[in-house]
């Protein structure tokens, strides 16, 4: 049986990818950003994940304004890094577990989550930056150490799905995973955030206090946290901070009882507060090698 053993919350700031791609992570500006991921990379290696279920958003790269699926599940064989306007990131092709992805798609729809099935899709920094920070530098000729199933969530055109919907989708993803026969260790990523506003005259908004309560409550109070109204994200965490609803998918897929094994928070990376957390299901901690 496949099972989800742990969850990762992680910002996906494009400038973090640029810093890695340009080899400037040792510059004083970037050192505190990347220091916080050193332990994460060791953890990721030890975790020996077979599959990452990666919840992210597209930034008007692959999805233009002509169609806006709220939840789109990647069912293609692989996903190429997209050109976002400055050339594709020089990172490996992202490979899917296609049979598993199809199984999850069917299971979710029968579980009344009417997702969009993507049989062809490129992926932008929203998906590749979390892989880069968790696995370290990988070139185009390398391979990511595990397979990736992407779930793309609309957070660009308001309204994104509610936190409650995302949390419950996480529970449905877990049911889908656990009904798949192959013995697979799955880690789920919720990405985006934390507080940031990229646009107009209030650009640059950062709310470290709000971000901290969000990180704290992922462990202590996840159900109430998932009820946070959109307007609170917009007002308190910036107009682009609302993408944190995607972290609730990750949290919903875990046990009620989790242990926070790592946290990292730093301001800034470009316009954004970098937030990162690793949560393990307490009951699965003895199962790892």
């Amino acid at each position, binding site marked *: 049986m496949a099972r989800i053993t742990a969850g990762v919350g992680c910002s996906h700031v*494009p*400038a973090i990818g640029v810093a890695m791609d340009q080899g400037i992570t040792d510059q004083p*500006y970037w050192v505190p950003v990347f220091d916080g991921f050193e332990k994460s990379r060791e953890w990721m290696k030890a975790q020996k994940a077979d599959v990452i279920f990666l919840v992210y958003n597209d*930034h*008007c*790269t692959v999805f*233009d*304004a*002509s169609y806006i699926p709220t939840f789109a599940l990647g069912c293609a064989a692989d996903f190429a890094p*997209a*050109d*976002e*306007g*400055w*050339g594709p990131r020089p990172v490996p092709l992202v490979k899917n577990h296609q049979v598993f992805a199809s199984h999850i798609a069917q299971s979710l729809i029968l579980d009344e989550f009417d997702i969009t099935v993507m049989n062809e899709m490129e992926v932008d920094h929203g998906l590749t930056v979390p892989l880069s920070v968790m696995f370290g530098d990988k070139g185009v000729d390398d391979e990511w150490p595990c397979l990736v199933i992407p779930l793309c969530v609309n957070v*660009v*055109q*308001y*309204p994104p799905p509610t936190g409650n919907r995302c949390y419950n989708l996480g529970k449905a993803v877990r049911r889908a995973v656990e009904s798949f026969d192959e013995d697979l260790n799955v880690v789920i990523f919720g990405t985006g955030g934390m*507080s940031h*506003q*990229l*646009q*107009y*005259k*209030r*650009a*640059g*908004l*950062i*709310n*470290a206090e*709000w971000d901290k309560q969000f990180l704290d409550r992922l462990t202590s109070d996840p159900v109430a946290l998932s009820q946070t109204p*959109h*307007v609170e994200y*917009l*007002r*308190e965490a910036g*107009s*682009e901070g609302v993408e944190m609803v995607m972290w609730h998918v990750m949290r919903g897929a875990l046990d009620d009882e989790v242990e926070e094994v790592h946290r990292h928070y730093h*301001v*800034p990376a*470009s*316009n954004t*507060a970098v937030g990162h957390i690793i949560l393990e299901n307490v009951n699965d901690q003895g199962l790892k090698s």
Partner: protein
Amino acid sequence: MALEKDYEDIPGTFVFDADRSREGYQLNQFCISLRLQVNRDAFNADEDGYLDNYPMTAEQRRAVLDRDWNRLLELGGNIYYTSKLAANDGINFQQLAGLMTGMGNEAYRAMMVAGGRSPDGNRYQHEWDKEGES
């Protein structure tokens, strides 16, 4: 009954809802086309001619040609789209924020390094009105 827009009183912010998306559709479709090199080349060779492919309003077209970044947002543009036009011009997200806030790149970058713009005094429009800003 219309859905309540409980986010309209956030200062200095556009929430890209369905009304804005409808208004900005052609503008945003133009912007996203620039993510491909072949289209960037065509646009850079003949901006006016390329824009004829997208039946946007005269105001939107003017804002594109003028690179009037805030005007683009006021006319239904979304930052993830307009950033494609900025990228074409060699302007990254942080530099774009320096332009939109009127702070300039250096001052904006310094504000971010110092912890960013505080939410205090920046949550509600009336807080800005009091300061004489709009």
